[in-house]
């Protein structure tokens, strides 16, 4: 589906607002014609009937009423167009966001979330240019000129002919030149965007530039890039503007021709023409009426051109929206309708079994190849291996964010695919490597996802969870305590504090299975110790599956799973594996020896 077709297909979302806007606009055009007629009537009376103010006064009042009505319809048309567009935007934003949500975290991890956020916010707002501006303008351009032509023709076919001959030239030229200009224009916009990006890049990298003494050089370079851009752009614009000048020329010259032809006939100028052509005789009132309508004939066509750029922006935004909405989700959907409705089970102990599980992100690139594994309730399992070994994939499969490409993953004997994901999620708590704090208070972040009427939302319950997570100390030392608002990405809190809030979240959740991605790497020793204490506490009486990045934290695990290139290469506890002199031992050595510098010196 082309972006334009897609945009058109969304218009019903606006309800009646867009049609109402278009009708109001048409009404405004009709009033305009009436207004021109009345004005010609008044001038005719004053000029030829020598009417005074007294005679024309009723017409003047009617004219005033027309002016008021036109102002109202114009304003109303604008309001309805904007309102209709707003409805479409709200509906689309919701649909796009829910679609992204349905695609699941695994899909989003591969995308640049920044670009998606841009699409959801500014991208959706860009659609205004199409629905609130371009669509009404196009509707007007397709009706008003025809209405004027139909009206003028019986009155004076000469003027009608002038309009008829020049009118098709305008859309013709607009498409002919416009297509070319659009391409050039698009390239220039891209260039401009690239130049802006370059500027931003220079600011962001200013420290690096300074470090290498390249910052002054960069200033000269910026000037050179901008200058080159100017020269290139002007070369394009000279041509692009020339084409729009041609358009403008046609419109203006035909108004002039209409005026001159009317003038000469009113004067009674004899044109030497063959006898079979007889020019229609016109009176002043008709002539003046036609003259007043001539510019209005071209105006909608020309204003359509001014909305062209906006339409381009909207089309570009639509392209991104189609991309997001388009292809089918690859991962399990969390839509209640899409997921099989299994019976709700109360969270209890879970036994997990991987049977010959394969997973590949793309054809031929297996992230997991034939993993078989059973995890008993209450077990403490550590996953180790280099990056790319498949640890994260394994966790994502467990969370239901990915589904195995082959093999099965069962929970208490039932295939995870047949379970309702929301229900399955109630059995587990998850602390990712970089936990996210959401806009809101610390308390609300700990209570995440717990319904407001649940007893766990009680302040005492939250406080107990924070205590167990070793987070209560620092939270309660804050002036607003649990009511402290959390900024973007937990601004103002240290990595260790964020981790402990996320642990408190997991405690409050009180789920039988805890999955965590240990992120002690970015913590200072004190935070690391506290987080570790919290994790040990959390492991008590629960199944704990942890991705371990720091090998000194895995010793407490009942079982250590060593993964390498999607395969389980070793499994056992610390002592056993150390004795085996295999992959685990090598990893441990690499870890212990990582800081050994100066060997070559």
């Amino acid at each position, binding site marked *: 589906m082309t972006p334009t077709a897609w945009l058109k297909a969304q218009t019903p979302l606006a309800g009646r607002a867009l049609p109402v806007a278009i009708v109001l606009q048409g009404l405004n055009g009709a009033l305009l014609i009436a207004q021109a007629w009345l004005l010609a009537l008044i001038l005719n009376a004053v000029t030829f009937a020598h009417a005074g103010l007294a005679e024309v006064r009723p017409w003047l009042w009617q004219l005033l009423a027309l002016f008021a009505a036109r102002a109202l319809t114009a304003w109303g048309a604008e309001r309805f167009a904007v309102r209709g567009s707003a*409805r479409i935007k709200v509906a689309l934003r919701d649909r796009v*966001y829910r679609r992204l949500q349905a695609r699941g975290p695994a899909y989003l991890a591969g995308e640049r979330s920044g670009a998606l956020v841009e699409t959801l916010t500014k991208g959706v707002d860009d659609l205004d240019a199409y629905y609130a501006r371009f669509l009404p303008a196009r509707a007007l351009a397709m009706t008003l000129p025809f209405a004027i032509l139909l009206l003028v023709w019986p009155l004076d076919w000469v003027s009608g002919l002038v309009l008829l001959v020049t009118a098709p030239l305008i859309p013709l030229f607009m498409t002919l030149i416009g297509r070319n200009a659009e391409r050039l224009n698009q390239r220039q916009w891209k260039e401009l965007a690239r130049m802006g990006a370059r500027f931003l890049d220079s600011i962001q990298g200013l420290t690096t530039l300074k470090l290498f003494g390249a910052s002054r050089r960069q200033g000269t370079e910026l000037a050179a890039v901008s200058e080159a851009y100017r020269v290139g752009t002007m070369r394009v614009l000279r041509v692009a503007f020339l084409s729009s000048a041609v358009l403008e020329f046609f419109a203006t010259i035909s108004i002039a021709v209409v005026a001159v032809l009317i003038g000469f006939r009113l004067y009674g100028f004899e044109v030497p023409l063959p006898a079979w052509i007889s020019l229609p005789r016109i009176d002043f009132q008709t002539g003046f009426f036609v003259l007043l309508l001539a510019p209005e004939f071209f105006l909608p066509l020309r204003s359509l051109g001014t909305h062209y750029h906006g339409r381009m922006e909207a089309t570009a935004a639509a392209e991104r929206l189609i991309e997001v909405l388009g292809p089918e989700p690859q991962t399990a959907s969390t839509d209640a309708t899409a997921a099989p409705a299994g019976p709700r089970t109360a969270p209890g102990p879970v036994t997990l079994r991987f049977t010959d599980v394969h997973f590949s992100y793309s054809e031929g690139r297996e992230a997991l190849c034939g993993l078989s594994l059973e995890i008993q309730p209450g077990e403490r399992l550590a996953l180790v291996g280099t990056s790319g070994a498949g640890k994260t994939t394994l966790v994502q499969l467990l969370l239901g964010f990915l589904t195995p490409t082959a093999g099965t993953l069962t929970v208490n004997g039932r295939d995870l695919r047949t379970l309702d994901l929301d229900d399955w999620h109630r059995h587990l708590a998850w602390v990712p490597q970089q936990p996210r704090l959401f806009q809101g208070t610390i308390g609300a972040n700990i209570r995440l996802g717990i319904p407001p009427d649940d007893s766990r939302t009680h302040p005492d319950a939250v406080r107990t969870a924070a205590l167990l997570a070793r987070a209560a100390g620092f939270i309660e030392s804050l002036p607003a305590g649990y009511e402290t608002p959390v900024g973007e990405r937990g601004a103002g809190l*240290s990595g260790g504090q964020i981790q402990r809030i996320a642990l408190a979240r997991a405690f409050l959740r009180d789920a039988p299975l805890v999955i965590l991605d240990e992120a002690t790497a970015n913590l200072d020793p004190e935070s690391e110790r506290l987080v570790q204490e919290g994790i040990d506490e959390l492991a008590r009486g629960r199944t704990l599956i942890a991705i371990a990045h720091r090998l000194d934290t895995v010793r407490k695990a009942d079982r250590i799973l060593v993964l390498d290139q999607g395969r389980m290469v070793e499994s056992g506890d610390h002592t056993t594996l150390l004795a085996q002199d295999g992959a685990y031992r090598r990893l441990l050595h690499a870890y212990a020896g990582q800081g050994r510098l100066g060997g070559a010196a």
Partner: protein
Amino acid sequence: MKDVIRLLRLFKPYRHWMLLGALAALVTLIANVVLLAVSGWFITAMAVAGSAGVAMNYFTPAALIRGGSILRTVGRYAERLITHEATLRLLAQLRVWFYSHLEPLAPAVLQRYHSGDLQSRIRADVDALDTLYVRVLVPVLVATVGACLLLGFLLLYDWRIAVVSLGFLLLAGVAVPLWSRALGQAPGERIARTEAELRTACIDGLQGLGELQVYGAAAAQARHIDALSRTLATEQVRLAGYSGINQGAVGLCANLSLWTLLWLAIPLVADGRLAPPQLAMLALFTLASFEAVAPLPLAFQQLGRTLAAARRLFAIVDARPAVEEPAGPSPRPDRFDIRIADLGFSYPGAAAPALDGLSLDVPQGGRVAIVGASGSGKTTLFNLLLRFWTPDRGTIHLGGHDLAQYRGDDLRRYVTLVSQHTHLFDLSIRDNLLIAAPDASPARLEQACRVAQIHDFITTLPEGYDTWAGETGVRLSGGQARRIAIARALLRDAPVLLLDEPTEGLDGETEQALMESLDRLMVGRTVILITHRPVGLDWADQVLVMDQGRVLARGDASVIAGATGAELLGGGD
């Protein structure tokens, strides 16, 4: 007003272009008014002459009509060309102006603008400045001069008509825009706030989707986003309603002006003081003259936005650099030892000093490791060593000369940094490397990349060294980006090397491989490394443990690394 004058001063080099652009716009406006007014006069005069059977000179008005239409087309073309030319020249100059003012402020003063959002805003602000010319200056100038000329013409006929026209022009061009702007202020602010909230909610919803789903809060987040989206749309509709008043007002004022003119002029025609063709001319003249004020409502809106942007930029530009460059030439050291004596430093507005009485001697070729948690003052020391900040007290000597005697750029020829944050520019890998040494030959680049163990990887890329890196280019992993940083440092070939957690966030194996590259980089250089992990520091001659700006312990590598390392590793046993 002060900001406007300051902005205009920035625009000064292009004042000829700007005046020319405004002149072209004025010609276009007048040509259009002439075209319509003369057409009205012409038709009426021809009809009157035709019905009376008298002769009239129709050549002049017909020529005026043709001339007007051609002049209008040419004028519009010239106006668009010239204003774009001026805008592009301006944009180039504004960027360079801003960059050159920003450069001395980096990185110390710019730390306040660290977040990506703020930097994007800077970019948008600079772009907003150039609209001042096309959207504000030209329309205001044309409206003012045009309105004066047009009113002068009306005065030739009747002063009352001129006064009424002036009144409606001011109403449409000034009063209504100001009024609607006042109305739009509150929804405008609410829109900005809601947009920010919506953005945050979307970021939360996408980046935190995993947690939202696992904790069963995803549906609530979707509802939250939808609610914000609805609030935003409601406010947008309200604001559009107010700005819609503007557009309607120009048309309505033009019509009302025409209506009053008829009311005033028809008795003049009846009296014989005004010829009927002149009435037709004045009627169309009035309607057409409102084209002069039509762009003003937008100009008012733009002016507010542009000035806000200008104020933000001026605030940055006016900041005092954190480091003053010495007047004389920099010393040329012949040895590269570092002597730090009683160094103290506090960040502006900070309660506690970041560095408090640090002393350290590093002989040429010496190797120091500084261990401490974040906030212990390690990074501050590097900022002072690179002369990004000036110490509050104490001194740093490099090769026997006080650091304050070195010009920043000269100093950084001798001191370079490899940090965990490597900025890869939106350029090819080659150009990213050349930043460190613009004259380096391809062979030297490859040599540096071999030592940094990144050459093999680069050659596996289809475009090799010409592969685009950075934001829009190929994604390099953390380890690869840091190897590029190492290659840059090798190309820079500075005798003093600062390492800021160079292996942070990498997994064990990558870390070990990177360390091998670093080993080679360190050969023959004076090295200071900062880290928060007291492990594997046995290569260092000196180890310092820092906390809150003070040195807690210092001594031999084995002693300190052994003690703290054992404590840490033993913590879990």
